[in-house]
């Protein structure tokens, strides 16, 4: 499975953020998307998820059945500030999701909560009462159940405590088989530790940073150098 981006361009008024991007993401990998503040990482995700109108460009999903236009249902998007329907309890929300998508249910609701380590007591709380990290878990859980082919994660581990971060990392590693996961982050160590490939958004373009035989230290330096070369900053 491949996600192919063709000629993606997006501007805000006079400011061009993404310019004629061509890139291919492959299945079974976690991609770490790095870039300086304001270069357009979230814009790139929003464009893929059709949350914003783009100036030009096409997205295709190539599977064993052929190459088709990317549909939003193929995407699961975990945003940096998790937003959940706060008037529902966690259990009601997940149950609602399973009710409307019965074909996606592969486990019992308890087993699902077990995956993200949410206790029975917490399941009964209104999502309004959940912390940032807990809300994030719920967002990821919905994406795990819906099992989209592509998962976009916009700084998902920021402001989570270390224990939850480790749980999340494990979850993502478990999920990467059969999926394309793109994770945007500012934490270089996390990207190197968790991701299979590092891609950089700079100068309105996406490019892969080749690791080859480089040591971690040299790889880091190479990434930082490439980030520093961003003429937009």
């Amino acid at each position: 499975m491949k996600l192919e981006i063709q000629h993606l361009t997006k501007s805000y008024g006079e400011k061009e953020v993404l310019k004629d991007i061509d890139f291919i993401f492959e299945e079974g990998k976690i991609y770490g998307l790095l870039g300086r503040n304001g270069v357009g990482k979230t814009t790139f995700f929003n464009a893929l998820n059709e949350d914003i109108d783009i100036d030009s460009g096409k997205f295709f999903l190539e599977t064993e059945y052929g190459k088709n236009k990317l549909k939003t249902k193929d995407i699961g998007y975990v945003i940096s500030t998790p937003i959940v329907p706060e008037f529902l309890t966690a259990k009601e929300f997940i149950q609602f999701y399973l009710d409307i998508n019965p074909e996606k249910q592969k486990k019992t609701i308890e087993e699902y909560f077990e995956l993200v380590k949410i206790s029975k007591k917490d399941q009964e709380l209104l999502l309004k009462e959940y912390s940032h990290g807990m809300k994030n878990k719920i967002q990821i859980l919905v994406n795990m159940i819906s099992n989209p082919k592509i998962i976009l994660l916009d700084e998902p581990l920021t402001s989570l405590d270390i224990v939850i971060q480790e749980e999340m990392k494990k979850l993502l590693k478990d999920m990467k088989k059969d999926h394309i996961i793109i994770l945007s982050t500012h934490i270089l160590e996390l990207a190197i530790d968790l991701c299979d490939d590092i891609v950089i958004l700079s100068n309105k373009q996406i490019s892969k940073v080749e690791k080859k035989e480089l040591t971690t230290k040299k790889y880091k330096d190479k990434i930082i150098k490439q980030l520093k070369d961003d003429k937009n900053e």
Partner: protein
Amino acid sequence: MNSILKKSFEIDTTYSINSFFYILRKIPIFKDLITEDIYKSTSLKRKIRFFSFLYLLCKKILLKLVYFLVLFYSCQSLFPKNNMNSFFHVYFIFTIIGFFINNKLLNVSKKKYICLLLFEMNDTSYLRTSFIWNQMTNLLLNGLCFFMIIKFYHYPISYSLIAIFFSFFTRVIGEALNYMYYQKYHYIWYSNTRLYFFILGLLLSLSALPLIHIELPFFVYIILIILSIVGSIPSWIYLWKIKNYKAVYKKINSQVKQMDSTNEKDYMKQMMVEVKAKDKKISEKKIRGKKGYDLFNTIFFERHKEILLRSSRNYGIILIIVYIGLLAMITNDTKWFHNIHDLYEYHIAWFVFIMYFMNRGSIVTQAMFFNCDHAMLRYNFYREPSTILSLFKKRLMTTIKVNMFPTLVIAIGNIILEIVLKDFKISLMIIQILWIISLNVFFSTHYLIIYYLLQPYNKDLEIKKISYSVIVLLTYFISYQVSRITTNTLLFLGISMIIIIGYITLSLRLVYKLAPSTFKLN
């Protein structure tokens, strides 16, 4: 003090200049001519600062004049026989209302944020300067307004002076008491909506007393002005001694999330519709056997019951009081008997405006967006056309249900009044009840449809679509114009029913066609 005032003006004028540039750049012909660099041009800004100041000054004067003249001419038309006494009566009560809700020290603004938190101005000086400035401008503007009615309508100077200074001194007491209340209970008193509506309702009822020929006598004004002068002395001292204004403001500001693009009005909207943990409990009976979207919508309604029904219940209660009042009037006063009789005979169209005014559709859509759609629209499954449409149908029923209590009060109130007026015709009555209910359906559908077709809100409940505001304004305007139609009741009911059915059918078709692409996050 001067430097604080100067800085404060600079902030105000810079804001208005930037807003002007922003609006200018939105106009297609100027967009290409004026680049973003215009915001950086300090020399240009310095040159037009005077005009900006003039604009802000005119705006302040104009707003005050509009408020005053609306009040004045409303009294002129509502109480033609004794408009002077009635006007002073209403003015004094409105000043007392202002005493409770007009709160300059505790409200939040971007300017305050910049002055106190970013520029770190001395908070005591800032508080004193801005307070004195507000007091003096209000005194001058009130003076100007009263000068007009003394000059052109020969209103007595004694009454006018009392009114001007009553407003001046009451505001001092109001600010001090509100601040004291906040210090003690850590919330602004009118966040307690029950108390707020109770006091507001009571005072508004008192202001309506001239309708039954009761006005405050002159000696009450004398007592009120003496009380306000006496009360203002400790209030001045209290306000002068405030030392921790920055800390208090910081706290209110963080509550309001002011710089997170929210203004106080939007914050109040958020507070009104925000779901509370105490609303969690739902009767098992209500959700038994329900699944999916049906369950989702039921839980939404049950957890927002208090929020959604509160204002419609308040309107319903006010309407019951109004109908009882009208009943008392028509049984005791032949003039009122004939007036109300004429209303039902020729001016039934007024109920269009009343039903428009009563409809809580906008609160319902705000609650839907703030607590539900704002989050759910992030999930792709929720944006599927079938989901949007299936939930739309359920929500339409919910909105109609929310508005049903005041609707029924009006429908039943009309029957009772018409029986007393001896106008009771069973066939006409049934048509009228159906018409009132269909007006509820009409306005409920209207609000929901424009929400689905334009989705105007951002995450802070700010309205981001001008088209939405224009339609809301047009709805008001059209409802008002329709209400002025004078015609035969049966004819009007017949024609308006046809229009309502036509509008609903057409709009539903539009929603079904367009909502899947228009119902999205801004």
